[in-house]
């Protein structure tokens, strides 16, 4: 095949080697020389073809009905077996090589045409694409934190309980052991609705605790629930908004005591703040619906608005808790000598601010897309314990 490598020198026109114009081609003894010469000529002609049409002309001239190679092939019939043995392979070989050379040249023309076309087909790949919707959308930090809380507590066997925002005085206060007129009621700046004909007033729940009552009235112990939800107090300043979010936990079970409560809260803090260790301080306090009552601080270091847990020497109050008050158990139809339990409550907005470093509570409710884009979460960043809550 070496001889068929396209020649690089300029060649005479293909028609100069048309068959029949060549004298003495059938002369014996010269045949092999003729084949070599013809191959040389055809090779030159293939290389010289400037386009597919010219190449086709070369093909016809060589392999067409009356082509030069065809003519050679025709001579085979008139040869003796011995001659044929020698010239047959030579002529057929010539035919194959010519064919191959033609095909290679044709592929070359096709490739060049494709390259030329592609060369004109460009796009500016630096143009920006549309932002994926899932990249643009955000989930509010409150929703994200509720999902985080759910993941943590579901793992400890807690269900999620919910209740209405508009509550009765009985469920929001009386059943929770807030005596009528007691100063503790006043600590809740309550939103009321107008009195009904019977004198009773509905209100906006000041805490999620009425759901504790609803749960205890509806469900037999053992109970393990967390209660996230909206809560309301008629208070508005730098650090208070008239609406905020709380999450409470309630456990009613035989033998559940403060030691268990401590453990659950420690486990929660470690899981939620995603640190190996959180130092916690349990201080006695007062809530009408728990006895004993405790407040919980966590140790942290505050540096330019950033809070780090498990280090430093600041104490930050994060929640209130205690053993469910015997009066509350009684009010919910449970015998405090028979069953017992504990509860805790904290601000969802507050723990979100602590964990994610938002400086201002009010911004949670302003729906400023800049704030939401910055502090919000991508829809596919679903918090799981397996994948890390916030990674």
């Amino acid at each position, binding site marked *: 095949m070496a001889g068929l490598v396209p020649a690089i020198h300029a060649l005479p026109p293909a028609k100069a080697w048309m068959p029949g114009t060549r004298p003495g081609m059938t002369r014996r003894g010269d045949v092999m020389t003729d084949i070599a010469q013809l191959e040389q000529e055809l090779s030159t002609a293939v290389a010289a073809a400037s386009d597919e049409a010219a190449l086709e002309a070369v093909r016809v001239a060589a392999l067409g009905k009356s082509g030069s190679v065809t003519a050679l092939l025709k001579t085979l019939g008139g040869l003796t077996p011995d001659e044929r043995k020698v010239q047959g392979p030579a002529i057929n070989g010539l035919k194959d090589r010519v064919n191959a050379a033609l095909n290679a040249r044709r592929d070359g023309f096709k490739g060049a045409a494709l390259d030329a076309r592609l060369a004109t087909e460009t796009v500016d790949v630096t143009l*920006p*694409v*549309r*932002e994926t*919707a*899932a990249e*643009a*959308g*955000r*989930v*509010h930090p409150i929703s994200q934190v509720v999902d985080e809380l759910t993941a943590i507590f*579901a793992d400890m066997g*807690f*269900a*999620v309980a*919910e209740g*209405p*925002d*508009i509550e009765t005085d009985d469920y929001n206060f009386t059943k929770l052991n807030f*005596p009528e007129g*007691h*100063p503790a009621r006043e600590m809740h700046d309550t*939103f*009321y*609705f*107008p009195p009904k004909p019977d004198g009773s007033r*509905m209100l*906006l729940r000041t805490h999620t605790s009425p759901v504790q009552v609803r749960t205890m009235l509806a469900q037999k112990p*053992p109970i393990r629930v967390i209660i996230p939800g*909206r809560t309301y107090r008629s*208070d508005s300043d730098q650090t208070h908004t008239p*609406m905020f979010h709380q999450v409470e936990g309630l456990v009613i079970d035989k033998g559940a*005591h*403060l*030691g268990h409560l401590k*453990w*659950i809260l420690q486990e929660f803090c470690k899981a939620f703040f995603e640190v190996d260790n959180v130092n916690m301080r*349990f*201080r*006695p*306090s*007062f809530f009408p619906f728990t*006895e*004993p009552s*405790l*407040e919980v601080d966590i140790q942290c270091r505050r540096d330019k608005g950033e809070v780090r847990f498990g280090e430093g020497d600041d104490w930050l109050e994060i929640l209130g808790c205690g*053993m469910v*008050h*015997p009066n509350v158990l009684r009010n919910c139809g449970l015998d405090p000598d028979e069953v*017992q339990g504990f509860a805790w409550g904290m601000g969802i907005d507050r723990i979100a601010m602590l964990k994610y470093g938002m400086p201002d509570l009010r911004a*949670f409710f302003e*729906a400023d*897309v*800049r704030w*939401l*884009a910055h502090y*919000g979460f*991508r*829809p*596919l960043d679903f918090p799981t314990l397996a994948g890390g809550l916030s990674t």
Partner: protein
Amino acid sequence: MKFTLAWLKEYLDTDASLDEIVQKLTMIGLEVESVEDKGKQLAPYVIAKVVEAKQHPNADRLRVCMVDTGDGNPIQVVCGAPNARTGMTGVFVPPGAFVPGKGITLQVGTIRGVESRGMLVSEAELEISDDHDGIIELPDDAPLGASFAKYKGLDDAVIDINLTPNRPDCTGVNGVARDLAAADIGALKERTPKSIKGEFPCPVSVKLDFGQTHPLCPAFALRLVRGVKNGPSPEWLQKRLKAIGLRPINALVDITNFITHDRGRPLHVFDAKKVKGNLIVRRANNGEQLLALDGKTYTLDQAMCVIADDSGPESLAGIMGGEASGCDENTTDVLIESALWDPINIAQTGRKLGINSDARYRFERGVDPNFMAPGLELATQMVMELCGGTPSEVTVAGKAEAPEKIVDFPTSELKRLAGLDLSLIEMRRVLTKLGFFVAGQDSRVKVAAPSWRPDIEGKADIVEEIVRIVGVDRIPSTPFDRGDAPRKPVLTTAQVRTRKAKRALAARGLTEAVTWSFISKPQAELFGGGAKELALANPIAAELSDMRPSLIPGLVAAAQKNADRGFPDTALFEVGQIFKGDKPEDQFMAATGVRRALARSSGAGRHWSSKAADVDAFDAKADALAVLAAAGAPAQAMQVVPGGPAWFHPGRSGTIQIGPQNILGHFGELHPRALEALDAEGPLVAFEVILERIPEGKAKATRAKAVLELSQFQPVTRDFAFVVDRAVKAADIQRAAQNVDRKLISGVGVFDVYEGQGIDAGKKSVAIAVTIQPREKTMTDQEIDALAAKIVAEVSKRTGGVLRA
């Protein structure tokens, strides 16, 4: 509740440091809110003598002083005070100290070419008064080099505790001391007031008169001290009151304020000469007025209790005295009142009138009934000591008696509720120190609560007292096993829907907002709300007055606010509660979103890849359907019908329903009038879906999906374009085609809708693609053509459509 360290030590014998005391207070439930320790703050400030003051060479108003702090090495200080002069004694502070009144740390400085190595200070610079006229001048015998704070008695730390409402006993310093002593911070110094013998009968009588109504005053003790000399109280008393932020008035008033804070026992003093006749304790008459000691006139009603004389109310019982009978410098005869009041009534009256007095603070928590009489004795003693005079006998109306409270306490209760093991000896020790009486030796004891602890009701309270004092940190953290309960999903269907709806909408490029649950009344009315039972009686602002019947107003307002900030193309959503009534079943969970301007579902804002176009009803429709799909609504059962509630554009809105009875939601362009009322600028589209309306799927016994059946025959698609009236619904064309053969026709899509040139006015062309899925054999061309003819005929019959040429 504020007090000073020295004051505390009047009742507590202790070597504990301020830090230890503060720490312990917090850990036994008396949370320390702040500690102001002037002694520490002013430690570098020492007494010094100006041995020489001469004119500054380069400044008329400045002097160069040589200041001696007692070590014989005078320090050069440049001073601008007019009273800086040779020989005076003042207060010096060296460089490196913090100057509270200026908020700076002092440096060595050069003032107009003269070096100054410290400062002579004014009272204002130390923040001990507003006086900044000159530097402090002290007597000549003040000890040079000694601490100024100590010399002036400013080194008494002020502690402020955030007292919980259940602890009336700690509204007095002695109560705080008792708690600390129980927690082993020193020993309590009990000081029982002496009984003082009256020299004559009290000339003023007291009558408790509540008729048939609930008595608001269980007991009232009164005594006259005749011939007193009132005036400024002694310095120690003034200092104590000032330290906790009270203004000294005169000795008689200061004594009552002192005892209020010292023993948690509020008292009142009347100028006897201003009281006409006898005293009567009664309910106020409606409309009765009283000019109180705070200079304000209060209008009273029958729910309130007053102390009246012949001329009317003289005091608002247990809350504030009246101006008319108050004591001043001219008072010579003083009536001292020590009484008990109904705590709830005090709280209610105080709240109604907006008075937060020290007396109310204590009476509404419930003062110690057993200290009513001793409190009066203590006051009498102090009046006699400070003002002289002769006391009358005490007259008492009613009976001061603490109810006996004995708790039957199994000692195992501590372990049961707190998980803490403690011996009875330890329990008894704590309780006894707190004033409880513990009887019995066995596993069940009787515990009697002291009279000053009205908060103690039962066993849990006793547990709390023990835990509080021994320390919560002694409770071992105990793992709480999740038990044998099977691991099941913990969320209800509604909760799962809520969280899926949120993620689905965020994944469509909307941003979640959390807006107020209350909106303005006009907005509530516009969106079908505004009912009387949903209007707050005490809204925080007029625009936050009514519970929202829809999330759209809040979201539209938020979108508009963002537009005003320069972000016009916003897509917001909220999944939250809406209110149709005040019962629990009237509250629904709505998933709602708005898109504004160019915030299309295909991408917000202008982009080179496509022509900018405003949001339209189909963006909202797609959002609504996405929520419904995520929340598990049955796609096959839902229909979309034109039109929606009044706040939607009538022609560009739709309702998603399952039959006419169950409306799942709406979507579309908002009505221009609604936008106007919301003060918002469109284009704005919205959708709202009520998650509770989605029917619950049937519970299945297996999680396995239905068997998948794949046809081995290729589907065939045929396109048809029909010219129909403009009003014909595409869904009707689709349905007509589909119904020709529900088995063979596996889908009908709409791929073109055209109006305009080539189509008559009032008409439109709707092109559908019908997918035919052969089930049993490959269909022949004839069979397919026959089906196509049926489709054309059926669509034509149902919609009047004509196959487009």
